[in-house]
């Protein structure tokens, strides 16, 4: 059975630079940076007081009437997924029960799916703390009191706000997507791996259309605290937010937590062509691997040359039937944590050794690291660059790390016809993946 071809017919994102692929991309072309003092919680006593926060949106205006009751079950992570899906669906011009409840609709619901990567989803700490305050004895949490009734101060459906699969579930309900539905939980690689899985599902005839991507809010006190404890976050730029996130720069002091999400709509090529859809391009290569740290007991330090990433890139290029020289743009993971950036730069230099002039766009200086949303956001930015033929500048990377020879777009926006783009992602924990997206002939 020959594999079917899938094409990209809609893209959408939400992050600190706005909602929708164009808002973010235009802001990037204009030099904007979305990293600012944290608003979601008072961070003055946290080592890092900066974040890349997405706009506040009244969610009940974003979902069909029939789903409005469920808005109260949407944690911030779920909001990110729903907003990104909405932007992508608008972009695709597909009619579904969301925008056309009386029909006609363009999709076969049983042949349409959703795969959205998610993170660990910490609960709302203010909500929990308030609930817990009713179960204290002498100021200390009293588990017996909590069990005997204190827990009732949490809403009955509390748990459902924090299950990672709920990102996909809400989106499946809004658009009536009854086909394959998954939730990939592979840290920062989740988005790209979800898009990769969607591509395979369509290729193997399991679905005709899939919304795929990732979303997460890492602007939660717990997530920020984790990165502080792990010393991965930048704690020395609180007064200079615009300079705080510096992927691949020799002055980088760590990542900046962010929130966001992005969705790519993949459709069977014949079906997309038949409905006259705008086609951005298609996934021609995808592979994932593991960055094993051999010597360290710390699984959160990648191996020094990111061999896993290199393997993923090589396999993705081979699947696409191209070499590094054919690439017109690389969008690396580049999270800003020096150990990760150094390793990834080594892997990229090795793979691109005959093509070191390929432009490289590191995006996280603009909006921070949005966990499971990160690599899907990068994919949407890469696709937009391909659509427009222009690559935004890489900011805060004036002096690349370790004399790295990659051709960062650090001198300004670059105009270039883009036929093939490579996106890479690396998770804290070791999952790594690479995707080649190409213009459709």
């Amino acid at each position, binding site marked *: 059975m020959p594999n079917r071809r899938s094409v990209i017919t809609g893209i959408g994102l939400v992050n600190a630079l706005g909602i929708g692929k164009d808002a973010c991309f235009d802001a990037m072309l204009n030099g904007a940076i979305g990293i600012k003092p944290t608003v979601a919680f008072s961070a003055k006593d946290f080592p890092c007081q900066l974040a890349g926060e997405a706009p506040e949106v009244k969610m009940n205006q974003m979902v069909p009437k029939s789903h409005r009751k*469920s808005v109260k079950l949407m944690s911030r992570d779920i909001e990110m997924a729903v907003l990104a899906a909405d932007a992508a669906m608008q972009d695709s011009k597909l009619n579904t029960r969301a925008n056309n409840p009386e029909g006609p609709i363009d999709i076969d619901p049983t042949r349409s799916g959703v795969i959205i990567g998610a993170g660990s989803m910490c609960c709302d*700490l203010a909500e929990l703390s308030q609930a817990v305050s009713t179960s204290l004895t002498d100021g200390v949490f009293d588990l017996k009191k909590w069990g005997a009734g204190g*827990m009732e101060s949490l809403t009955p459906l509390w748990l*459902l706000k924090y299950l*990672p699969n*709920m990102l996909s*579930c809400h989106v499946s309900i809004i658009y009536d997507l009854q086909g394959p539905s998954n939730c990939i*939980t592979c840290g920062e690689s989740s988005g790209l791996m979800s898009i990769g899985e969607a591509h395979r599902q369509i290729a193997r005839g399991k679905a005709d259309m899939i919304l795929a991507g990732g979303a997460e809010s890492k602007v939660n006190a717990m997530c920020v*605290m984790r990165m502080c404890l792990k010393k991965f976050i930048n704690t020395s730029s609180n007064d200079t937010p615009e300079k705080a996130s510096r992927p691949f720069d020799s002055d980088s002091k760590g990542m900046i937590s962010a929130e966001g999400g992005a969705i790519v709509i993949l459709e069977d090529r014949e079906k997309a062509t038949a409905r006259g859809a705008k086609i951005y391009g298609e996934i021609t290569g995808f592979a994932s691997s593991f960055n094993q740290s051999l010597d360290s007991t710390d699984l959160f330090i990648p191996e020094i040359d990111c061999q896993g990433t290199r393997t993923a890139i090589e396999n993705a290029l081979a699947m696409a039937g191209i070499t590094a020289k054919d690439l017109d743009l690389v969008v690396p993971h580049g999270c800003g944590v020096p150990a990760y950036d150094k390793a990834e730069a080594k892997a990229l230099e090795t793979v691109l050794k005959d093509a070191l002039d390929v432009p490289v766009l590191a995006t996280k200086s603009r909006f921070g690291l949005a966990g499971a949303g990160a690599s899907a956001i990068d994919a949407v930015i890469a696709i937009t660059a391909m659509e427009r033929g222009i690559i935004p500048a890489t900011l805060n990377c004036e002096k690349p790390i370790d004399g790295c020879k990659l051709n960062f777009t650090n001198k300004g926006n670059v105009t270039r016809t883009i036929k093939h783009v490579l996106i890479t992602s690396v998770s804290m924990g070791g999952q790594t993946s690479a995707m080649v997206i190409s213009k459709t002939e």
Partner: protein
Amino acid sequence: MTRRVVITGMGTVNPLGHDVETTWKNLLECRCGIEMTELFDASTYPTKFSAEVKDWSFWDKLPQEIQEKHKNAARNSKLMIAAAYQAWQQAKLPASLNGQDQINAGKVGVYLGAGEGPVDFDNFIAAAAASWDNTTNSMAWDKWAQVASSRLSAEKEIEQEPNMPAAHLASIFGLRGPCYSCLTACAASTQAIGEATELIRNGQADILVTGGAHSMIHPLGVTGFNRLTALSTRNDDIKTSSRPFEIDRDGFVMAEGGSAIILEELESALKRGATILAEVVGYGSTADAFRITDQHETGRGGAAAVKLALEDAGMKPEDIDYISAHGTGTSENDKIETLVIKSVFGEQAYKTPISSVKSMLGHLIAAAGATELITCITAIRDNIMPPTTNLKTPAPECDLDYIPNAPRKAQVDVCMSNSFGFGGQNNTIIIKKFSRDA
């Protein structure tokens, strides 16, 4: 032609055993893994019992090097490592693929349906307890930050991320292939096994460690399910509290554990001389797309998954010898699952033996599907089907053959296993006794 996918290893750590054989023996003897909760003080909770993994001696059986290197792993990751190690041994794979050239490590990976690690409760809750300001009715973030930064540890925190069980496995076995983890609630490990099958069929991997691990037996996990009123509260008769398909069932019983299954492309397994335990022949995955809180009343999503799995296997309902049900013991699930089977199987539904081992094991959440699939593999091997215990008076809407209260001997060649997740994700797997001719 699509590549065939076979099972060459399995392992489990669960409330009824720390290996496959003990678990299987206990299931056939109708033993129950449910006891009063000991992992935390649940004495005032609406539900005071659960099915815990007791006695961590299985961890001591692992090679010293693994114990040492992965000692900071969270409980779910440790359960996963112990299960995967058994499976890996049974599959006769080299201790690590790192630095050997027999097997291409780039074609060997992981696809788990694993849960998040249990929260570091005492320290986490201490921060919450210190932080609510009743006078201003707002959060005192300074206090939260102060307590959290002094009491929480980087290792324990970051190990809670749901990608970690898969990362530990890839590291232990030296894998360079795809390293996936998914978390579709109670359907996760069945989905992982299904997607892993697809990855191998499609040539992206030759061998994958699949399965899952989860432990939600902690104060917040049980709080979450108690608030949903999804758990049984039969505190006065805990040994019979898990009552799938019974008229007075009152919810599921929380369990924990890890189960691993090694999937391998047929030619690779034959070439290595591995023992083939069964073949994965069908997989279906769908969504209800109905409501966050309820399954669709007709069971349309579950039925579609079952149908897709049958189509994928090229089989008809009469080819299925045994169905391992999701069978949680909640009022809604058991009613709708019965409807699902009837809607696809028609009259054949009444002739097909079905059981829920959750009646003895409890509900391992993300790890449930993989654990149940292991019981399907042993059912095929031994030609005996595990029972649904505690089934004296089936509910009127549950009128199929649930193998009540005693195991049943019969020729078992083909098994179907169902998993339905909160939020409406449905997954079905079909496995078959292996024979060289498809």
